[in-house]
């Protein structure tokens, strides 16, 4: 019983982190109908920045106080946002302008991902240990509360503010939105900003209980799980991304907590199995809109 509870607790913590990252995938897809594979590298960049800033500040009078963490977090978020905007502006927008096919955009995203990954690898190929700001118990509450707050803020933003409504308009019909006088490029850039900011916050929450990580944290350690979560929940749907994130987080934690009966070797089989089953019955994901599209 205790094992199961521990598993659920871990799962909720991991799930909330996956949810924050899945939102990035979902939002960007909803707006530009493109999977931003470079999102995994935004995660890595956020983690690296937070790490390096923390290490620098630990040596100063701020020590290991909450200010160090907050400053590191803010700088990580700002950097991620800048990287996201630059990527969107120089790698994705030119393709959109030219009217390139979706495949081209996809491959470009993969290419950008590899470029960033290579840079991160060159900077630090070895394992790093993030400073332990809090213990595992506290980090659980931080994860849950932060995610709840951010989700509420995001929902309010998307439903009630003008910019948020504009975002929903662009994701529903780009042409019509333009006719309404919405600056599409600005909205798209904003979406990337929000997505990457959430990713940076997510990775810092993951790391702050003293986790060890490498330059592969976004692409391999956290990996495709947030993306799978976004698709399971219905790509383009924000609540869906969150549900998907928690689902995957809990499955992972439960299989690991029962690793002594061999369940941990099945984690990917189970997750992708559920992925396939859900898509078989509901191709647009759990909460996705059933829009038939011609490719």
């Amino acid at each position, binding site marked *: 019983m*205790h*094992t199961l509870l*521990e*598993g659920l607790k*871990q799962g909720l913590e*991991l799930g909330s982190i996956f949810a924050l990252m899945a939102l990035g995938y979902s939002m960007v897809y909803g707006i530009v109908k493109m999977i931003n594979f470079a999102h995994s590298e935004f995660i890595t960049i956020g983690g690296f920045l937070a790490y390096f800033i923390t290490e620098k500040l630990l040596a100063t009078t701020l020590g290991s106080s909450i200010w160090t963490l907050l400053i590191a977090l803010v700088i990580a978020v700002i950097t991620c946002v800048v990287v996201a905007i630059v990527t969107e502006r120089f790698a994705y927008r030119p393709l959109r302008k030219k009217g390139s096919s979706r495949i081209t955009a996809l491959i470009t995203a993969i290419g950008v991902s590899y470029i960033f990954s290579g840079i991160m690898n060159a900077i630090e*190929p*070895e*394992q790093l*240990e993030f400073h*332990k700001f809090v*213990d*595992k118990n506290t980090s659980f509450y931080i994860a849950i509360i932060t995610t709840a707050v951010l989700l509420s803020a995001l929902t309010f933003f998307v439903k009630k503010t003008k910019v948020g409504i504009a975002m929903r308009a662009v994701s529903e019909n780009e042409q019509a939105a333009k006719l309404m006088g919405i600056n599409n490029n600005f909205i798209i850039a904003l979406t990337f900003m929000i997505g990457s900011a959430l990713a940076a916050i997510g990775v810092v929450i*993951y790391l702050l209980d*003293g*986790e*060890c*990580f*490498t330059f592969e*944290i976004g692409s*391999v*350690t956290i*990996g495709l799980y947030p993306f799978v979560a976004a698709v399971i929940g219905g790509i383009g749907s924000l609540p869906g991304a969150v549900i998907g994130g928690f689902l995957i987080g809990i499955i*992972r*934690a439960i299989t*690991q*907590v*029962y*690793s*002594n009966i*061999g369940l*941990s*070797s099945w*984690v*990917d089989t189970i997750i992708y199995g559920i992925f396939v089953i859900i898509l078989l019955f509901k191709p647009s994901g759990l909460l996705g809109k059933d829009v038939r599209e011609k490719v």
Partner: protein
Amino acid sequence: MKKLFSLLVVLLAVCSVVGCKGNGKEKETIKLGSSGPLSGSVSIYGQAVKEGVELAVEEINAAGGVNVNGTMMKLELVDFVNDEADARKAAAALTSLISKDVDVIVGAVTSGATEGLISEAVKHGVPVITPTGTADKLTVGDNGDERDVRYNVFRACFYDSYQGKFMAEYTAEKGYTKAYVLYNNDDDYSKGLKNAFVETCTLEGVEVATAAYSKNDKDFNAFWVPILEGGYDCVYVPDYYENVYNILKTGYSKGYAGVCYGGDGWDGVIQQVKEGDDASFLENCFYTNHYFGKSENAVVKAFVEKYEAKYGETPVSFAALGYDAVYIAKQAIEAAGSVEYDAVVEALTNGTFSGLVTSSAPFSFNNGNPEKAAVVITFKDGKEVEAE
């Protein structure tokens, strides 16, 4: 025009024949070839072996060289190829080294890469002494029946099932009745050690449970839950130092109070500890290694001194093994009195080797494996010490 052309052809033919005659005459040096990971997550191993090998070559040449049937010949490390711990790259490295006329291969470093190198090496019969490839199958194949194919493959280190078996016997000796193995399911080295450990534990009457993680796992909190729930106080973690440090740190911070055991992949764990961090949990951890750098043994001390003088740091066991592999090659060539592949292989198969850093007693090879013992290392006050 035609006459000029045929004259040129004849000239070329004569030149190439004369050139051919030139080859295979007096060899200037004994050529060594090597490969190992010089970049990537286990580059610390490749670097260490390279430094050990280069030190040995330098030392031997300074002392006059190798006595090949009366003639003193110098050693030459033709190339240390960066195989990035990848089997295919190591196989390509072997081919390129053969084309450079090597006499002995001192490589590769990681088991996976060595397996790739061997797949090419058996086609040539070149003597291969891997300093640090510990996987069982390297010398005898997957089912243990390929010694006649891999007759030219030897290793300077002990092999994985020996390590796993050794630690299982140690576990039983220390009085543990149950043990838990947390291993990396995506790594041959980890699985090899785990299999040997489990097998011997069962023989010794120690109850053993196992749990696997994958190469992508970095968060081990959940994996420790069944260990703590099950009340285990002996955990075997046969993986490399990066993951091991992460696993140990996580476990002890969750309140684990037992011992942890490991294999030679742990070498480097102590360097993972951040300055100022409390690493006292390591005092409950023990691992098998090839040698202990602070030993009072004269051969070890001399090696450590020379290594520190040349590189400014204490040698890890991989460096000692690289160094020893070269000396084994030297002793084999001297015993054979020649650098011919078959003669050297024969000397390796039947000879006795002594005065090595990683083995105080003389030893010989059995199926390519050296019959030598392991050292158990633990930690005290942030430094490694030999365990009782």
